[in-house]
């Protein structure tokens, strides 16, 4: 918005703002099951996504048991191992992180933070969740299908994904996986349209784009990216499904399978890699951008300081979003591509470091001389910054062709992407849950349990993934069921693997403390009041907590300021909510309740 001069025009009170027609539930089923209220849908999304997260956590335990103690657990044969790896990866990336950030936090926070009563298409929003649920159902069903789930690796590269050597390749596994992904994308598109259009069209009066909290900016940009990137996965899935079911040759080259020539002629496996990573790389930022946004708000609130360089933060989000579409082939340096291609993609990859570094500097400068409260959400936010920087730095290694080629397909890559898009976003999700739980339930989460959860998770994640870099540098490959006794593998590597496994078990088990906390605090948590963190953004200014259907009672809020007025000199309190008229306004006697 351009600078607005002090006008002499009359003040419009809130009821003059056009209101929207709201859907009203009539029964328990329409209120809590097939609900069209974005807040209920958000909780449904979060609950399902966290449940899938627990399944994926157990899968990671199983795979770690095999890696740490090879041969001890006889039920984890090579096939089972690949199935665990594949399902863990796909579940975490798509069905947990994407669904939780966009479906969970997006649904809860967008309408509340922009001052809307609900999403603009509530019915479509409800469909979005149930279609997501169906996608999860299909995915989990593949565990019980003949042959079990697919073991093609989360990247599902053809031709191995649909040939008989791979678990689920010639059985139901891969079909269910592809169908589930397609269903997920259809559901997400419905949700994504809602998130984007709500931000564009349903903001409260005065909520200009540049007054939106960065959380909304992050979720908005990520939703838009997801809308444009997920079709790539959809196209890939359709083509692979045709290859698998109807015998087409989109991706299937002429090949010999188990000694038998296949009736295929000249598909291009590389084509799938391009499509997959055209989705896959933006996906990293689809998960990261909401995390960036949320962390900005957590840091600003809990350090009682306005965000440093708000404008730059917004621009950096947009720049990262745009750039992330032109770096996909850095996942394919070893696919035999033209070296000039590699040069181009290495350059674009390194350019992304610039807006990302701007964000990191701005977070640190926000903290600088702030009144830092080491609350649980703040601890998670700080841990995110450290972890994201660590993961990002190894990204600079892997973004360069010459360094990537020897490190490709080693545990170094596993360590890198777990730090940058596994641990880092999960830390933000935890921080965000501790931060917004009081708004959702009206009660605080238990602080002691929260701190225990934080320290074990944070230190544990480092104990798990730091040594993996070292294993990778030694040349230990990823995706191996059993590395055996190769000459280049010292005994210390086996000890390290066992250590990692034990820590992973401990960290995983500690998540139960978090789950317990979520349920226990529902009844026994300390009463939170409407705004326990003394935050400025609109969701904390609702007349009731938890906010009822329609969010705002009689009047929708009117926004007078940006989202970061903390410690404003001369103000009565150390924060000014977004819907509080400015000091000048206050002296004219006009106000908004």
């Amino acid at each position, binding site marked *: 918005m351009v600078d607005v001069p002090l006008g002499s025009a009359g003040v419009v009170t809130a009821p003059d703002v056009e209101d929207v027609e709201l859907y009203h539930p009539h029964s328990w089923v329409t209120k809590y099951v097939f609900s069209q209220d974005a807040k209920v849908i958000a909780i449904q999304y979060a609950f399902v996504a966290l449940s899938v997260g627990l399944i994926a956590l157990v899968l990671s335990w199983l795979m770690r048991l095999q890696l740490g103690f090879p041969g001890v657990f006889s039920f984890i044969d090579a096939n089972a191992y690949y199935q665990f790896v594949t399902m863990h990866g796909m579940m975490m990336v798509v069905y947990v992180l994407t669904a939780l950030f966009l479906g969970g936090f997006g649904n809860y926070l967008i309408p509340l933070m922009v001052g809307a009563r609900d999403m603009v298409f509530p019915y479509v929003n409800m469909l979005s969740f149930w279609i997501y649920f169906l996608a999860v159902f299909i995915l989990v069903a593949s565990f019980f299908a003949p042959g079990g789930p697919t073991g093609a690796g989360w990247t599902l590269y053809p031709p191995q994904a649909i040939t008989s050597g791979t678990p689920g390749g010639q059985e139901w596994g891969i079909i269910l996986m592809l169908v589930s992904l397609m269903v997920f994308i259809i559901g997400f598109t419905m949700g994504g349209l809602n998130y984007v259009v709500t931000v564009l069209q349903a903001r409260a009066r005065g909520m200009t784009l540049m007054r939106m909290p960065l959380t909304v900016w992050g979720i908005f940009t990520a939703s838009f990216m997801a809308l444009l990137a997920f079709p790539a996965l959809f196209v890939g899935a359709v083509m692979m499904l045709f290859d698998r079911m109807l015998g087409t040759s989109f991706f299937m080259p002429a090949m010999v399978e188990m000694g038998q020539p296949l009736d295929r002629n000249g598909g291009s496996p590389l084509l799938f890699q391009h499509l997959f990573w055209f989705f896959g790389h933006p996906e990293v930022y689809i998960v990261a951008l909401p995390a960036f946004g949320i962390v900005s708000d957590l840091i600003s609130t809990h350090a009682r300081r306005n965000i440093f360089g708000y404008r730059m933060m917004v621009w950096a989000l947009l720049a990262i979003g745009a750039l992330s579409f032109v770096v996909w082939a850095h996942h394919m340096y070893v696919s035999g591509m033209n070296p000039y291609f590699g040069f181009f993609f290495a350059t674009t990859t390194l350019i992304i470091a610039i807006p990302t570094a701007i964000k990191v500097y701005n977070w640190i400068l926000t903290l600088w001389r702030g009144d830092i409260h080491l609350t649980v959400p703040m601890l998670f936010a700080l841990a995110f910054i450290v972890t994201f920087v660590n993961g990002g730095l190894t990204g600079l290694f892997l973004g360069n062709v010459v360094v990537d080629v020897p490190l490709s397909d080693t545990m170094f890559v596993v360590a890198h992407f777990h730090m940058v898009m596994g641990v880092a976003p999960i830390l933000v999700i935890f921080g965000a849950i501790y931060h917004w739980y009081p708004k959702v339930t009206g009660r605080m989460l238990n602080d002691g349990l929260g701190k225990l959860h934080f320290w074990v998770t944070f230190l544990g994640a480092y104990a798990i993934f730091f040594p993996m870099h070292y294993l990778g540098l030694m040349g230990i490959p990823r995706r191996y069921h059993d590395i055996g006794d190769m000459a280049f593998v010292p005994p210390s590597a086996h000890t390290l693997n066992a250590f990692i496994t034990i820590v992973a078990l401990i960290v995983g088990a500690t998540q139960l403390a978090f789950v317990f906390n979520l349920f226990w605090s529902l009844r026994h948590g300390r009463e939170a009041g409407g705004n326990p963190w003394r935050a400025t953004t609109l969701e904390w200014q609702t007349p009731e907590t938890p906010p009822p259907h329609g969010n705002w009672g009689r009047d929708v809020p009117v926004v007078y*300021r940006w989202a970061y007025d903390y410690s404003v000199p001369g103000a009565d309190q150390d924060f000014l909510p977004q819907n509080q008229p400015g000091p000048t306004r206050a002296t004219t006697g006009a106000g908004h309740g």
Partner: protein
Amino acid sequence: MGSILLFLSILAIIATLWLSRQGIASKPWLEQEAAVVLSDLPVQPADPTTIGLRIFLAVVGSFFALFISAYAMRMQLPDWRALPLPPILWLNTIMLVLSSIALQGAKVAVGHGERVELKASLIAAGISALAFLSGQLVAWQQLSDEGYRLAASPANDFFYVLTGAHGLHLLGGLVALTRTTEMAWRVPVPERLRLSVELCATYWHFLLLLWLLLLSIWLGWAGRFIDICRQLLT
């Protein structure tokens, strides 16, 4: 991947132009002293469905641009054998053009409040769209009779999948069109009806454009364009 990058570049330009008019360079932290008066605050534009449809079209556009990218990449391989286009596609194209024109007529009619013309145009649009879809099925039949079946060669695979995807999108549009046509009989509120007709018209024009693009690619007219896209990347 030239087509999708070109498509995304166009979207990026539109987004940048739009953002540049949203005060993206403003300094919100300086505004609190200005104590904005409510009447100076911009009122949000009204209708979310129009924006919703435009964004949905961007998603559909991205979907087809990716398919076309894949097609262009696959075409480069030496074993590519293009399939002959059945002449009925020309008739189908005329049907789709007519359908689009009829919906444009419906849009004008609803603007002028002419109920009879509106109903006639909506029905004409529906029938010609159905004719297009039937014609597409006939084209599939003719091709497979001549031996150009699915799974026989990659060019065939792409042809069937792309025409199928386009047809499914039109079929989805027909559901909306049927509901709109029904509204033309029932609903007395002109505003809702006008919006509905406009959305249908926009969607139809988009699908027509998409069809013409696909046709030009199969005819080889877009070959030079694809070459340019490819050179941009290599």
